[in-house]
Every structure is written in C-alpha cells, then in structure tokens.
C-alpha cells in the first residue's frame, strides 16, 4: 500500500519573522526556509510504516514554486521513494485549493493513507487535512500522537483538549500529525546524495484541472501590539505586593 505525504515549504521555525512596514505581508526575502516541522513528523511516520513492512511506497507531494522542489528533496533524503511537485507561482495557495490539488494527485496515485501535518507554522490554518478528507469522503483523524496500522483500518490516538482519544478509521484515510507522534530523523549525507537521483515529477494546477485562485482577500498584515518588558523584582515579598496591587490575586 502507498502512503502519500504532502509537505509544505515554510519559514524555518527558528526565524524571527518581520512584518513589512507597508502592511503588505511578511518579509520572506532571504529568510531560511524549511520543511514544515509537522510534515517532517508525517514523513517520518510514513517511513516507519514502510520500514515495518506495512507500506510499500512513500510519495511526497508539494504545492509551490520551483523552490518547493528543495523541500521535496528533503523528504526524499529522509527516505521517501518519489516526489510530485504541483508547480505554481501563485503567491498564496489557500488550504481549500491545496486540498483540491491533492485530491487530483490522489486520483492518480491511489494511496491508502495520506499523512499531513496538523498545521503549517506560517499560516497556522490547521485545515488542509480535514478539507481533503471531506472532498474525498474519507474518514479523518487529526492531531495524531500514535498511529497503528491494521488490516484495512488504522487506529489513531489523537491529542484532544481533554487528553487523548483513539479512533479507528476504515482505509483509505487521512491522518494529521501532532508533535508527539515521533521524532523525525535527519537525512544523512549519503541519503542526500541519493535523493538527487530519485524521481521528482512535475505537474500544475492547470494540468490537474483545478482552480487554485484564492477566496480570501488579505487586506493588510500588521505587527501585533507589542508588550513591553516589566520589572525584575528582588524578592518573593515584593512580587506578592505587586500582584496584590495589580488586583490579580
């Protein structure tokens, strides 16, 4: 069985982003980009299933510009077998469009399991997996912290507000990863070299017949109200006095 893992190229999690002063967005010129951390977890999970003999092929897919090919190479270097780039130079591809494009890729690839990240750390939307599941009419298990593949079904433990919950999904199914599912491996140098030779196919929204135009207009992007540093106090008693003064005790 095949596993498909959509991976997104995002600003690296250690970058302190800057909002453009004219309110038109976030300055992405010359900032370090990486695979979305939740997607690394998704790739790792797929690879573990393959290594355990439960999957035959792991395919990574990314939607974005030529640069997203780098992110796909990262997935291939981790151990994925093949990659598909849905190439678009659009500045913004919204989750609904991403889900439609993935649905079109899935029609050809026919995976039994699709593992996505629960959220991309740039837009923080937390939607794509759920939307994809809806469009395919497949069951979904979001925020996974444990995935156990059975015969024709998958048991997924989810991190929910009150604790943990386990669902059984009939395959084919959609899973989205949470932080504690696994610790993703780093690609070794030999594997990075090998990844350069692995197949990376290219397609486009036009070729897939999907209208990827955004539905939302971003009117402006601003910095949040800044919080100013307060005071460092000398003792516990001073702290208690300040908290009483502030009326929060």
């Amino acid at each position, binding site marked *: 069985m095949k596993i498909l893992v959509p991976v997104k190229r995002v600003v690296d999690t250690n970058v302190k982003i800057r909002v453009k002063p004219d309110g038109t967005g976030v300055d992405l010129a010359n900032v370090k980009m990486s695979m979305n951390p939740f997607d690394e977890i998704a790739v790792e999970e797929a690879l573990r299933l393959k290594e355990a003999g439960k999957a035959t092929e792991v395919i990574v897919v990314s939607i974005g510009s030529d640069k997203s090919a780098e992110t796909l190479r990262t997935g291939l270097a981790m151990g994925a077998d093949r990659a598909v780039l849905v190439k678009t130079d659009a500045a913004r591809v919204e989750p609904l469009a991403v889900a439609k494009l993935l649905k079109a890729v899935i029609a050809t690839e026919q995976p039994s399991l699709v593992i996505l990240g629960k959220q991309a750390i740039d837009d923080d939307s937390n939607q794509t*997996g759920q939307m994809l599941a809806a469009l395919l009419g497949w069951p979904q298990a979001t925020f996974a912290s444990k995935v156990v593949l059975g015969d024709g079904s998958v048991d997924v433990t989810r991190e929910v507000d009150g604790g943990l919950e386990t669902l059984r999904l009939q395959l084919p199914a959609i899973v989205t990863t949470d932080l504690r599912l696994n610790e993703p491996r780093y690609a070794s140098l030999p594997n990075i070299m090998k990844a350069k030779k692995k197949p990376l196919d290219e397609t486009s929204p036009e070729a897939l017949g999907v209208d990827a135009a955004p539905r939302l207009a971003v009117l402006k992007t601003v910095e949040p109200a800044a919080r100013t540093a307060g005071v460092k106090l000398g003792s516990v008693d001073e702290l208690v006095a300040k908290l009483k003064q502030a009326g929060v005790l």
Partner: protein
Amino acid sequence: MATLIIAEHNDAHLNDATAKTLTAALALGQPVDILVAGKQAKAAADAAAQLSGVRSVLLADGDSLAERRAEPLADLVLSLAGKYDAILAPATSTGKNVAPRVAALLDVMQISEITKVVAPDTFERPIYAGNAIETVQTSDKTLVATVRIAAFAAAATGGNAPVETIAAPADSGLSSFVGADLSVSDRPELASARVIVSGGRALGSADKFQEVIAPLADQLKAAIGASRAAVDAGYAANDLQVGQTGKVVAPELYIAIGISGAIQHLAGMKDSKVIVAINKDGDAPIFQVADYGLVDDLFTVVPALTKALAN
C-alpha cells in the same frame, strides 16, 4: 440570514468556549442559533438556551454524535447549512477538527482562529505564531470560521431561547470510537482559567513538576500549564501544552516557571493580563514579555512564593 454556532460541550456541561463564540457571532449582526450535537446532551442544550442573544438552540441527540467525530458531525452541519450564511465554531480540538470539513463540503474557505470581527465579512487572525496579524475579507457565499476563544469575552446568561430537537445523522461507519484517556482534574480548565501556573523543561522530572508547580497552583486555585519541552519530556500531560501548537490562553495572571520564552510558547500566552516569569537566566526571552520577573532558582523561589501566599 442567520449564524449557526457549533457548540463545545460534553453533553452534561456547556463549555465556556460556546459563550465566547457567541460574542463573536453576535458581532456579525444576525440572529444566532446554537447547535448542540451529542448523546443525552439535553443539559448542555438547556444551558445554551440560557445564553443571552440566542434565537434558538438545535439539539441533535444520538449515538452517531456521542464523541462528536468529524464525519457525522460535518454531515449534520451540512444538512443545516442551507439556512445559514455564517457557521462558527470555537477553535477547540472539536471545532478545529470539524469546521474545515464543513467548509470544504460547502466549497468555501475557512477563516481560522479569528481574534476580531472587523465587519461581517472581514476578520483579524494571527499568523506566524502570533508574530503577525492578518486582516482577511471573504467573498464566499457562506462564512465558515473558527473563533480563538481567548480573544472574546463570554456572552452573558439570562436568555430563554427555545430548544428544538432535530434528528441525528446516520453513521457512515467510516470511523468509530475506540476509547479515550481524558485527564480528570479538579482544577479550573486551562483554556478559561483566571490564573495559570506553567512549568517548563527546568522542572527536570514529572515528580518535581508535581512537587513544585501543584502546591502553587492549589494556593492560587489556578490551572496548570506547561511548555512543549515539559510535555515532550513527560513532566506534564499533552493537554496542558500552552503555545502556537498547543492551547492559547489569556488569563488574568500567568506565571511562567523555568520556561525560556520561545516564540512558540509566547504565541500561546502573551495576551495574558499580567505575566510573571521565574527563571534563573536574566537574559531569558520570557522577561521581554513579563510584567514582573524573579531571576532566581525556581526550586527555592516557588516554594517560598507558595508559602508567602498562604500567609
């Protein structure tokens, strides 16, 4: 037309997140109905009916809705969607799970975690772990949005809306519930607590976390939170993680203990009214957002603070 809210509740109790979502919904300026989907959820529906400003409560009660799995719940919402031009859910794990599924089936984009209603079609929402605030406008036929509950005050009670029972959807059998391991605690809920005491990696073990953090939380009648590092290390349960990828909170008082203040953590707590940081490293970034700081060893300061508060 009207606005539909997907209520957050556990059948017996209506979660505060619903009343907060109602505040956002009322700002849209249309009549608001609340959908309570569950099993034996009459109590939650009655509580929703008492919220002020609600036109009616729809109670869907049945086996398929017992755990509020995404597939049947989305089917139910979809069957009602024709009567609404806005559908809101709180950005809880249930809301975040189901709302995008509804949006996709309606062929509309979802707006995630709105923090402000600028106009009925225009909203503010944080991106990049709260380091930028985006104003977005939708032109979709139906608005589907999740509401960041820490950003809205709870609507008042005192209403008396009618409760109408509607049919629960059939179960497609695509998913089934296996079990749950839910935290039981007498403490206030993290998402709506007035005071939060939060511990980080510096606590060093689950035992120390309990030993140091719990007495202070008891003293303050506070909820307990944690950094991702503390949760990853097993010092605290996953549902206690505060941050970009955990819970977003805005209590009156947030006490960060042995937490460095990574941007992902700040994203979840920097809108708290008063922030206290206890960290032995005076250069830790947490001090850049803290109103009051103590640069000291937490293992001496926290017990001392607990004791001082007891007096």
